[in-house]
């Protein structure tokens, strides 16, 4: 009989021995006589085999609960945006890939939600489904800058190349947001969605041709185009009087400050084209351009060509005028030189001034249409650029370095002041 390392369940004694008396070996408690275990399983540890089930049977690792929640979020977003099943499947694939990547596995939950939005955005863009970053940011209730950052990171991580979104693609979806049909607003202010979209799209294309769209956020341009197209569909006094803010309020669309600037820019562009209409005798100004929008859009290609041609001609005339003026001033200047004792440099200066008046230093003003940031540049205070020529190995004067070091007196005073401040803050 050999001692077995078991505890008797009856009396708790560890005095359990193996008994080979019978055909089957048994483990018997010496103190109370109860059989602890019997059969060939007696030598197995009580409580089961030593091999864990998960080791013996192949078990797939359970997906993380946040991943499951994230996938659900992706599906919800796809359903809200009403995308097709291909886009939904692709977004889920991207989400799973990105989630398990080292750059996203340990980030905050907000970022993981932004990741879900970014994956939906990427899949939509791959399938030419027009969705903006702003829409995704609105749906997941995050700042669009944060979504943008996660979006760029996701593109880098998954190594995807996607086509850029064009404003014209998003235009239709944007126009559908406006509550402008006759069931939402009175009849004189209502407009049919299709017509509104068509005209707004044409305005956006014109704006794109005249450099108003490139580099700018799409939403203010779309709002401006929709507003102007609504006004021009029925240019009644009521509509023309309504401001952009009131229009946004009426159609239940969020206000947008830059949209007003875009309205001004588009109106200026329309004026330039409107002035080329042959049958219009009066001058087209931003105040009366809305009534001409229909004609301008119908003949926009011809008007654009005409406007460019007449601008080129006027430029040539200007240059010729300048040349004639310069020649005249040169002649008078040389005559003056002969009579008076002016220095050569002053003559050159006046020449330069004359030339400056003719060819603008701002090349944007020489073109009919130029990006607004070039035509109206922001005046920046430029620090005088120090074009000092150094070799990098010059001698450094001690006096210069000493000017950067405090005197002993200063150091003592500062140390004292800091001590006093610390004491004050401790007292408080």
């Amino acid at each position, binding site marked *: 009989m050999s001692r077995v390392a078991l505890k008797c369940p009856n009396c708790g004694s560890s005095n359990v021995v193996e008994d080979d008396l019978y055909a089957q070996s048994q483990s018997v408690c010496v103190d109370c006589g109860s059989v602890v275990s019997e059969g060939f399983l007696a030598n197995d540890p009580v409580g089961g085999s030593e091999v864990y089930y998960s080791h013996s049977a192949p078990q797939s690792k359970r997906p993380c609960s946040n991943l499951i929640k994230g996938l659900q979020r992706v599906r919800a977003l796809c359903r809200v945006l009403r995308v097709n099943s291909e886009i939904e499947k692709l977004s889920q694939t991207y989400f799973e890939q990105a989630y398990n990547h080292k750059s996203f596995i340990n980030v905050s939950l907000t970022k993981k939600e932004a990741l879900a939005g970014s994956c939906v955005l990427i899949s939509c863009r791959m399938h030419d489904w027009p969705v903006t970053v702003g829409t995704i940011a609105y749906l997941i209730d995050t700042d669009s800058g944060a979504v943008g950052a996660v979006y760029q990171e996701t593109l880098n991580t998954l190594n995807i190349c996607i086509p850029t979104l064009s404003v014209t693609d998003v235009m239709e979806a944007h126009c559908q947001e406006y509550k402008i049909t006759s069931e939402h607003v009175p009849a004189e202010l209502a407009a049919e969605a299709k017509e509104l979209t068509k005209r707004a799209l044409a305005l956006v294309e014109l704006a794109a041709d005249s450099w108003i769209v*490139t*580099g700018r956020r799409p939403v203010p341009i779309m709002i401006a185009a929709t507003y102007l197209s609504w006004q021009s569909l029925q240019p009644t006094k009521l509509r023309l009087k309504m401001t952009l803010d009131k229009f946004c309020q009426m159609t239940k669309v969020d206000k947008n400050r830059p949209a007003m600037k875009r309205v001004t820019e588009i109106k200026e562009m329309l004026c330039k084209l409107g002035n080329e209409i042959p049958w219009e005798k009066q001058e087209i100004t931003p105040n009366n351009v809305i009534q001409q929008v229909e004609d301008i859009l119908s003949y926009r290609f011809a008007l654009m060509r005409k406007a460019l041609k007449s601008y080129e001609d006027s430029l040539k005339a200007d240059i010729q005028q300048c040349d004639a003026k310069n020649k005249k001033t040169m002649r008078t200047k040389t005559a003056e030189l002969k009579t008076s004792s002016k220095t050569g440099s002053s003559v050159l200066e006046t020449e330069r001034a004359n030339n400056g008046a003719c060819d603008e230093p701002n090349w944007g003003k020489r073109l009919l249409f130029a990006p607004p*940031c070039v035509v109206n540049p922001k005046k920046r205070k430029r620090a005088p650029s120090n074009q000092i020529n150094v070799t*990098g190995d010059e001698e450094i004067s001690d006096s210069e*370095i000493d000017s*950067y*070091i*405090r005197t002993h007196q200063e150091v003592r005073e500062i140390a004292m002041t800091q001590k006093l401040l610390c004491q004050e803050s401790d007292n408080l």
Partner: protein
Amino acid sequence: MVELSGTTPKCNHSGLNAHCFTLGSIEIICAAGELLVVHIRTDVHLARVDLHDASSGLPGTSGQTPQLFHSQAVTGTTTTALPGNTPLYNTPLTPMTPITPATPASESSGIVPQLQNIVSTVNLGCKLDLKTIALRARNAEYNPKRFAAVIMRIREPRTTALIFSSGKMVCTGAKSEEQSRLAARKYARVVQKLGFPAKFLDFKIQNMVGSCDVKFPIRLEGLVLTHQQFSSYEPELFPGLIYRMIKPRIVLLIFVSGKVVLTGAKVRAEIYEAFENIYPILKGFRKTT
């Protein structure tokens, strides 16, 4: 060019019926786009060399005249004249090494990007007590709760330095490599004067930023369509197009106004090369509307 395998005495020089041979300074004048592949070997005869037997009489040589491959050895100066009269390279020129052919004259831009910022690092080689530095230097600020380094500024060259307790320093704001080096040396000198055994080890330019203006508007939407694999244009997020050039490895920010920012360079030549690469591409998107 006939390759001369060995030096020949002047009396055997083909086609030269000269009585004397004068050496002058080498001047290479390059007009825009007229760079050629040139291999030049110049034989410099030292004083008291028997010109009829150039190989003998040269001390310390085994019968070979010194062949010049660098301009520094020549007493004259080498100059390259480029458009705008600005020196293109500050590094010593090597006229003897083959110059790769540039783009033909019709495509050269004539615009030289201006350097706006240089970031460099240097190791002062000793541990520093930032509190002492902040207390005793006039031009230093130190907020350990915000950032674990002293921010020091000097007036000339107008730069800012981040000085860490490990002794490493980052210098930013200089407009040229030499200015950056001079500024870093000045900061090291200030730290030295404050009582630390500062050295000047491993000075390295980490990043250079340049900018220029092509003076015509650029259709960013078109550029992103044709150069999709290099470009990223998201007007909702940033008004410029981000172009990641592979060779040289430079990132360019291209704006509708025609202004271009180039960054990521370790040497000046990379900025110039990147701009010369992008200029023909941008010209293709020039639209006169």
